[in-house]
């Protein structure tokens, strides 16, 4: 029961972060929100009995992808976009 409630909360916050990532104007908030989507999805994997996938998503999807996005964003001037 408590796990179902936690899963519902995680699902709602994942969707809210995805909406923020798509509709915000500033690119840096969009990138950080994408990292947040991956982070909440990794806890959802852990609740669904897949610890291997959760570890991969937390290390790669939430860590490295955000870092690569930020490296690229550093080379792009915001006002040109």
């Amino acid at each position, binding site marked *: 029961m408590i*796990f*179902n409630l936690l*899963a*519902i909360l995680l*699902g709602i916050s*994942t*969707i809210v972060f*995805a*909406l923020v*990532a*798509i509709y915000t104007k500033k*690119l840096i908030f*969009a*990138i950080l929100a*994408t990292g947040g*989507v*991956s982070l909440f*999805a990794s806890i*959802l*994997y852990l*609740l*669904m*009995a*897949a*610890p*291997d*996938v959760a570890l*991969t*998503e937390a290390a*790669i*999807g939430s860590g*490295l*992808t955000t870092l*690569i*996005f930020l490296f*690229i*964003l550093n*080379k*792009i001037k915001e006002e*040109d*976009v």
Partner: protein
Amino acid sequence: MEYIGLITGFILVILGIWGFLTQKNILKMIIGFTISDTGINVIIVSISYLKNRTAPILNRPDLLTDTVNKITDPVPQALVLTAIVIGVGVTALMLSYALRLYQEKNTLDINNFKDLKW
């Protein structure tokens, strides 16, 4: 639990596809692609979930007998493991193309790239 995962995954896929069809900025389109990638992985993992069973790691002696009725499905988890690692390679590749396009034309708006349009 599996229904919650399924609904979350479906909504994430729809949001991601909506994002990369409507946004004008190339970086925003790549972000939409990443979100729909996560959504597909959530769908596959939630299909592999079976009620009242543990993860496929046999680190307790009581799991060794009658394993078939005690663990969740391991095959979709192995598939998703592969998909996540390929996803980061594809994302990095798309981002490097986007940076090259920006250095060429000093803009990231998709409406300015009409070289192949007829």
